[in-house]
């Protein structure tokens, strides 16, 4: 057959899958770069905290009285906290805890949400109805309130916090994945796969699911930011580990409330840390969405 030779070969740029395409767009986006730098910084500080922190985070290293809490100095960059511990070391270690809580609760929520979403999206019918009503009920309770309720019910401790945040995120992922899968199921390539006799399970797992994951990944990045903020919020309200020596940004905020007038910086440092971490994941997530969204693809 010589028909093809007539047709000009016009592929857009050389080789590469959609992923490489998205990567190219991501690299060109300054917002993505800023987000990525913040995220990398946060993760690196969290991982390296034991080596970077100049002092132990849980032991007093200087003399303080409630009326005189020393501010930043050459030895103690962020000053000392109300119990005489090094604030800089505590913020560093706090990053570590935030990362752990964020990642664990994200993973738990992601797994739970994806299982529910996959069930609803793959089977439809009454399974879909049941799962979606459950999701509706869960979403009808305000997120933080819901998390507080669950955390309070499970008792204090970091496990309770992580489970609470995970549960709050389950319906979000479930609904997102289910919606995507329903949309993909209507597409021509699914019909085409059915037409050539591909089995249902393979259509769902091999075609529908992989093509539905992009927004879930984006949402996951954004959820990490929300999880960090939520964890801080719960800790601020006193729902956190029993061990007061664990440096947790939310609790650090709560503990310094009393000294807001004498040592306002004690609230500023953990607050800034929360903002920067959340901002990094949000910027990265948003630019990921832009890079991966088919609407931006030509």
């Amino acid at each position: 057959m010589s028909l093809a030779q007539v047709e000009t070969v016009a592929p857009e740029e050389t080789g590469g899958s959609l992923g490489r395409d998205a990567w190219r767009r991501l690299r060109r986006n300054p917002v993505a770069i800023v987000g990525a730098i913040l995220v990398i910084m946060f993760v690196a500080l969290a991982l390296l905290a034991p080596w970077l922190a100049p002092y132990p985070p849980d032991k007093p290293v200087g003399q303080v009285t409630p009326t005189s809490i020393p501010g930043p100095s050459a030895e103690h960059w962020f000053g000392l906290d109300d119990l005489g511990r090094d604030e800089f070391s505590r913020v560093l270690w706090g990053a570590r805890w935030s990362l752990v809580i964020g990642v664990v609760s994200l993973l738990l929520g992601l797994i739970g949400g994806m299982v529910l979403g996959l069930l609803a999206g793959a089977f439809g019918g009454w399974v879909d109805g049941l799962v979606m009503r459950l999701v509706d009920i869960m979403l009808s309770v305000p997120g933080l309130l819901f998390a507080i309720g669950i955390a309070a019910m499970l008792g204090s401790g970091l496990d309770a916090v992580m489970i609470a945040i995970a549960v709050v995120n389950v319906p979000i992922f479930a609904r997102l994945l289910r919606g995507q899968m329903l949309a993909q199921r209507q597409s021509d390539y699914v019909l085409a796969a059915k037409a050539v006799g591909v089995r249902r399970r393979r259509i769902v797992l091999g075609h529908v699911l992989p093509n539905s994951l992009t927004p879930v990944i984006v949402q996951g990045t954004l959820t990490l930011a929300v999880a960090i903020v939520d964890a801080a919020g719960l800790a601020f309200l006193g729902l956190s580990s029993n061990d007061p020596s664990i440096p947790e940004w939310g609790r650090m905020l709560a503990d310094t409330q009393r000294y807001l007038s004498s040592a306002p910086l004690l609230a500023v440092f953990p607050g800034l840390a929360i903002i920067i971490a959340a901002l990094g994941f949000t910027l990265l997530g948003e630019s990921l969405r832009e890079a991966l969204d088919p609407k931006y693809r030509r």
Partner: protein
Amino acid sequence: MTSDGRADPGGPPPPDGAAASAGPAPSNGAAVPGEPLLSVRGLKVHFPIRKGTLLQRVVGHVRAVDGVDLEVRRGMTYGLVGESGCGKSTLGKAVLRLVEPTAGTVVFDGVDLGGQGPEPMRRLRRNMQMVFQDPLASLDPRQSVESALTEPLRAHGFPGDRQGRVRELLDIVGLPAGAAGRYPHEFSGGQRQRVGIARAIALNPDLIIADEPVSALDVSIQAQIVNLLEDLQEQLGLTYVVVAHDLAVVRHVSDVIGVMYLGALVEEAPSDELYAEPLHPYTIALMSAIPIPDPEVEERRRRILLTGDLPSPVDVPSGCRFHTRCPFRQPTRCAEESPDLREMRPGRKVACHWAEEIATGTIRAAASAQDPTATEVGTPAVK
């Protein structure tokens, strides 16, 4: 396109007796010899319209396909034409049970598809394939060409060298072997449709339903794809049902053409005869819209313009479904009595009470239909 009965290349022989159960098969004598491969009787596809969020109630139906009978003989090409929204694509999908029919039977190669469970139906699909309108949408963006082409082979347990078969398929449809490792977005529209065709022929099917196979392509590419389809029919002994709104494409490829209007066939005839002498008022109107490439004849061409909009398939007109727009409408029968698709002459079927009178000129088109100010509605794209 040749239309002689050809030996079946690989399909199972039709079981005795099953073919006879296909119902009272009307012979379109003048058309094509060859055993019927596909027989559709009274096929309906109605989509319910639901209202309400909690307690959903059905408030009506979109009658996308509303009682279609047709027969496709082995080795021939059946063209389905009609305006967009007339149900021709849905009909094509319902035949393959990609859309579940509401009523009616589809007998393929002696097997009634209606009673098949999911797994037997899946196995039956290897003998009937589909080529889609939008070649990009019909290919998984995350799937390489090789994966897309081996998928049907895997699904049906194709023995032997699958990669060899992929190379063979690419060669058949005129793509370089290097295309195997590439992804759909890297190809041009025509090349993607070649991939779609390669996937459709991967299992050596008997029947291919091509749903607007070229309408999404550039005009310059359309002819290549049409030629490819014709070549494949010759090489592989395929039977086609080609769904299209482009009269020129359909005329070029089809042996028999069915004209659809609002979910039903209004006329069916051998291709040349349909174009030489359309019998149904709707077909007459469609044909009158085709420019004639001869200035003198074109000068005398009288266009019959359809007035009004295409009625909604939710609310199909009473009696003859075309009577609301018909330039030949008569005061009796048309609005009350639904005309059957009847065989007016050998091979010529038409669903019009007055087809004979219109053919002999006893009934003429209403003057308003030739009013140059009348808006022209629903004339399909014509080259």
